[in-house]
């Protein structure tokens, strides 16, 4: 057992830290939901690219750094601790790029990879539909062959960056006769295509961030299908495998959350309430368990293993801890918990509420806790299907 970093990894950490210190904007960028925010975020991504920090886990032949998962995790940790901006390139760099490398033709790679890296093309993901949430195979968006194009009709939902993205990769039903998982294709669509309309979804905290994407007779070139026609489910499984086997969320995030909770307790004058301290102690233990479990899974990835169904365990851990932490925060805030103005003991009450609501979404997005527990029960413990 050796949980230390190699000299090369330590050097990389210092390089990242120094670069971020020099380059991270002092002012938080305007929200990526706004036009000026979107431009600012894209500029930041271009700066990252120029600094050599785009696609650090991509192979060198595709313009990446060829960094292993440990370096990738180091990068994410430093990125978090530096308070650097959200990365609107994530879906392209983490999902679409790697999927293209496996299933794309030479021409498709030529066409898209470079733009993903340079942030010229921001990608979004079109999997979920109003009636296909947990049950992805229930999707209904249809593509019908018409001459030189697939004609797409239907609707996607919960599309991150969907309102502003340049491209979307979507699952569409290309053979309506086939059963659920068959007859689906994986297709790349230029968001400027006629017949596509993206409407931002206003979330319950009042912010945007996701979009609904409507397809009305949108014509997409035949060559935009990734993998074989009607074999999109397998391509999508590759994509979700990349999501699953990515290094976990940086553990530093959760230790910071606990510290933030302690800071709130102090600001509220309940620092010495042993009940509050009991919660804080429990959440710190949770954060420690997550930290070490994340390191253990990282080590497995670094040694060439795939997580498979065990990735669900990590998801359950961080999502439920996140929710518990913020719910404790609301209790610690007491009568200030509902307040958005400066009376709040939170540094930025509006951001605090956004994080609170987002913590409650954590047990839903990327597979609900219920789905994750089904996976663990059936595929880790071997319990029979219900």
């Amino acid at each position, binding site marked *: 057992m050796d949980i230390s970093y190699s000299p090369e990894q330590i050097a990389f950490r210092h390089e990242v830290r120094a670069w971020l210190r020099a380059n991270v904007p002092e002012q938080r960028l305007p929200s990526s939901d706004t036009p000026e925010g979107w431009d600012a975020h894209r500029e930041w991504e271009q700066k990252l690219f120029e600094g050599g920090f785009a696609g650090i886990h991509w192979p060198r032949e595709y313009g990446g750094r060829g960094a292993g998962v440990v370096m990738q995790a180091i990068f994410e940790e430093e990125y978090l601790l530096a308070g650097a901006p959200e990365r609107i390139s994530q879906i392209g760099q983490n999902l679409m790029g790697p999927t293209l490398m496996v299933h794309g033709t030479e021409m498709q790679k030529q066409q898209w990879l470079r733009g993903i890296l340079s942030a010229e093309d921001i990608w979004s993901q079109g999997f979920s539909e109003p009636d296909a949430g947990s049950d992805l195979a229930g999707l209904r968006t249809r593509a019908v062959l018409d001459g030189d194009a697939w004609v797409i009709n239907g609707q996607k939902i919960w599309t991150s960056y969907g309102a502003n993205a340049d491209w979307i990769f979507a699952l569409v039903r290309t053979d309506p006769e086939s059963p659920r998982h068959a007859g689906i294709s994986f297709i790349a669509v230029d968001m400027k295509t006629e017949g596509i309309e993206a409407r931002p979804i206003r979330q319950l905290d009042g912010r945007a961030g996701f979009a609904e994407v409507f397809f009305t007779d949108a014509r997409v070139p035949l060559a935009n299908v990734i993998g074989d026609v009607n074999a999109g489910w397998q391509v999508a499984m590759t994509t979700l495998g990349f999501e699953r086997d990515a290094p976990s969320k940086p553990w530093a995030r959760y230790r910071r959350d606990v510290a933030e909770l302690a800071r709130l307790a102090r600001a509220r004058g309940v620092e010495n309430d042993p009940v509050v301290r009991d919660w804080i102690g429990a959440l710190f233990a949770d954060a420690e368990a997550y930290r070490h479990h994340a390191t253990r899974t990282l080590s497995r990835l670094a040694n060439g293993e795939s997580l498979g169904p065990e990735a669900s365990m990590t998801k359950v851990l961080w999502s439920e801890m996140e929710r518990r932490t913020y719910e404790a925060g609301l*209790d610690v805030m007491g009568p200030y918990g509902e307040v958005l103005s400066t009376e709040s003991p939170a540094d930025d009450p509006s951001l605090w509420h956004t994080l609170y609501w987002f913590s409650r979404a954590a047990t839903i997005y990327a597979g609900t806790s219920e789905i994750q527990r089904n996976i663990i029960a059936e595929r880790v413990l071997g319990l029979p299907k219900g």
Partner: protein
Amino acid sequence: MKFDFTDEQYALRDAARELFEKESSPARLRELWGGGARDARLWRAMGEMGLLGLMIPEQFGGMGGDEVDLVLVLEESGRAALPEPVIETVAIAGPMIAAGGSDDQKQEWLPRLASGDAKVTVQVEASPFVVDADIADALLIEKDAALHLVPSTHFDAAAIQTEDPSRRLFTVTAKLSDATRLGGGLFSQMFLRGAWATAAVLNGIAMRLLEMTVAHVKSRQQFGRPVGSFQAVKHKLASAAVLIESSRSCTWYAAYALAKDLPDAPVAISAAKAYASEAEGYINTEALQCHAGIGFTWEHDLHFWLKRGRALEQAYGSARHHRAILAHHVFDELDRGSER
């Protein structure tokens, strides 16, 4: 032995529900959330229906009822996420002025409270905030172990931005004097009345959250079957139902204990508020989990109840606060050796 309400009490509950559905529909609530102004019609209609004077003596134009008469109306105000100071004006100020006000204070305020011509808001020491202080005609305030009833000419209100725009909070600065004092001996009652009424409102919020969630999971299909047929979902909602119904029993008893001035009223109230906060907290979490994506949208009504619920869990003492009071009571009983 009849732990139940009279036909009249149920009829009033039904009338209140109908009024709130008409005059304070989710669509109407959405207008307020969008910055719209409150409609004075609702409060007046409540006055006309007798809801506002329920606990005000008949000689001052009220119904001369008690907390048992009021408790189902409070539940309904929670079910409707009513954007009105029912807890403060109806459950606290009315009975407090009736019990401790001078003759002049009673003459001045009670008839107007009963008719809906006046609103009174409340500040307890446990919270720095006051609801609806800008439109209140008077403020009932705890200060140095005394109560004061301060007319609106004698206090200033500064708005606080809140997450729930239909629950408007303020900080106030009030000029207190001997002239504003309300009769003594009632100090602790204000907080207790607020805790009790908030428990009832929380129960109503919880009922609505459960109703919405049951309806959603019955209709929402995944994997070719209703989401509500999955055992994980069923068991969560069953647990919520158990908590909510027993919480209602607990709050109803507290109403009865208040009405009959039973010695265990304070303990019953702390138990009711602690329990109601936990019961609502449970369904608050699971309602959103069961709604999943759609529940996170501004366009869905669910968040009105989610936010109001989270706010009221903390109002007039959190569960944690009231549990500490209850523990004190348990050890106290132990010392007195009185278990029977």
